[in-house]
């Protein structure tokens, strides 16, 4: 199997095929699987090595003496400033892959390199957002945000400077006026924003998001999508976003990486030809629907 399959075996004429890129990145290749879908190359910031590179990673869980292969030969490259969605059915190993990149789960074979350094454990350069905001309930929003710098005994900034930095980030995520509120005094969406701010203050090279809005009601969810798109537009962060929701994946991502079942690997990558900035109205465009059809075909067609 080639390291990066860009062409889904779904409907439509087979495109030029993944002849060029190799493991160095998604590259501009990729067929137009649906008539009328213009394939836009992914952003080409940072030439050379990708920011996040997962090569041939395998993961085996051992439970009660039985070995369960969760991941096999997973390959993924994410460039700087790219928004990549990992899409797949529940239990397919998307979260496992994310946890491996985060360094909170060991892996067997292969290599995981982030920002030129192999992943050996968790670190503030890889911000992680969980399905539940996981705020520290005994700390105010500001103290939650300052948790990282304090835990690392960051001394290059004075306390006042750190505090000011925290307040700026809190304002960025739209929580101005809630710096002194405790998590239980925030609404569900606000808690996610606070979790965002807490990760952002570390200036992570990549933000790993594990179905972060899965537990929210659909209204709050759409608000959080808008918020995330806006934030990404303003700061061009590198994001790997795990989801099982096709709409969410296509709306948010520059690229949708579809993961297949047991042992899972990235079976296809689909570039999303929607422009930026994106809005919720894009959900109704023909391009969106066409991309969605392609993704769905890949997801179910195997």
């Amino acid at each position, binding site marked *: 199997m080639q390291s990066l399959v860009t062409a889904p075996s779904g409907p439509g004429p087979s495109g030029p095929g993944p002849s060029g890129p190799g493991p160095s990145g998604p590259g501009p290749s990729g067929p137009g699987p649906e008539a009328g879908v213009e394939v836009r190359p992914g952003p080409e910031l940072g030439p050379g090595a990708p920011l996040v590179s997962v090569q041939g990673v395998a993961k085996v869980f051992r439970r009660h003496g039985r070995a369960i292969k969760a991941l096999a030969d997973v390959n993924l490259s994410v460039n700087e400033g790219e928004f990549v969605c990992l899409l797949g059915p529940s239990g397919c190993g998307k979260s496992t892959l994310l946890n491996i990149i*985060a*360094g*909170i789960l060991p892996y067997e074979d292969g290599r995981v390199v982030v920002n030129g350094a192999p992943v050996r*454990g*968790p*670190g*503030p350069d*890889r*911000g*992680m957002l*969980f399905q*539940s905001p*996981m705020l*520290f*309930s*005994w700390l105010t929003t500001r103290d939650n945000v300052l*948790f*990282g710098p304090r*835990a*690392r005994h960051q001394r290059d900034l004075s306390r006042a400077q750190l505090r000011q930095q925290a307040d700026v980030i809190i304002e960025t995520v739209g929580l101005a006026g*809630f710096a002194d*509120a*405790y998590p*239980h*005094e*925030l*609404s*569900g*969406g*606000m808690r996610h924003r606070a979790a965002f701010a*807490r*990760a952002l203050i*570390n200036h992570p090279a990549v933000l790993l998001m594990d179905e972060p809005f899965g537990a*929210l*009601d659909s*209204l*709050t969810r759409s*608000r959080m999508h808008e918020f995330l798109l806006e934030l990404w537009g303003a700061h061009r962060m590198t994001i790997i976003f795990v989801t099982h929701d096709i709409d969410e994946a296509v709306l948010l991502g520059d690229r949708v990486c579809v993961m297949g079942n047991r042992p899972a690997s990235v079976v296809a990558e689909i570039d999303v030809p929607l422009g930026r900035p994106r809005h919720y109205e894009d959900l109704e465009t023909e391009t969106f629907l066409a991309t969605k059809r392609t993704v769905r075909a890949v997801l179910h067609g195997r």
Partner: protein
Amino acid sequence: MLSVLVEDRSGDIDDAEDQLDFTAERRARRRRRARHLAMSAAGLALAAALWEIAALIINDATFLPTVQATVSTFFQYIGQPYPTESDPLWQDVLVSTERILIGFSIGSAAGVAIGSLMHAVRPVRYLVDPIIEVTRPLPPLAFIPLFIEWFGIGEMPKVVLIFVGVLPIMVIATLAALDSVPMELELCARTLGASRRYTLSHVQVRAAIPGIVTGMRIAMAGSWTSIVAAEMIAATSGVGYLILQAGNYLRTSLVFCGIISIGIMGLLLDACLRLLLRWADPARR
């Protein structure tokens, strides 16, 4: 309880999140608490009134003294020894409280230590768990004759009795509190750059504190039951001793004074723990 309701509600009205005003919520919560406090005071006043009416109807000070008689006895014996060669009321209360605090402190510390160890080391958990499970349903009072045999009739058996009552409660509370800290919270701290040690002290232990303090409140309530019983069997001081003596001589109003003193001290110590709980868990403020 109330704060739990408030939390649930704030989570549900996401679509109105821009209108959410947490300082107003706090003020409202404070007002509600003041109202509840007033209601509690009214409840106590009602109980006192019912007592007074019953005492007036019965009209037998040995069976049920009036509130006034009890209050005046309280003020008489607060500084006056009863029985004559013994200690005044305030000293009895102090002695009992001291016994409780010593046994409770040692029991809590040991319980937290054992519970933590059980949480951290699997074999210890499997080893200690059955011991706790077997001893937990035993009433501490069953040990009184044994402790008198082992430790005499001094302070030791009373303190040990409190310790024995507090220990299993604190072990279980600590273990449950540590177990219920979500693993993701720990992972979250680690991805934010916290070291293992920092995560242990600032996240895992910190997140378990409310559960541990709740365990302390339960253990404290049990302590008063134990100490009074112990003081009734083998003691020459303490509130239990006073109540027993007063009962033997049909000084019913003094019995009530002893009971009320226990109530007040119990309330006071629980208030301290509740203060601790409020510090530990902002959702209860």
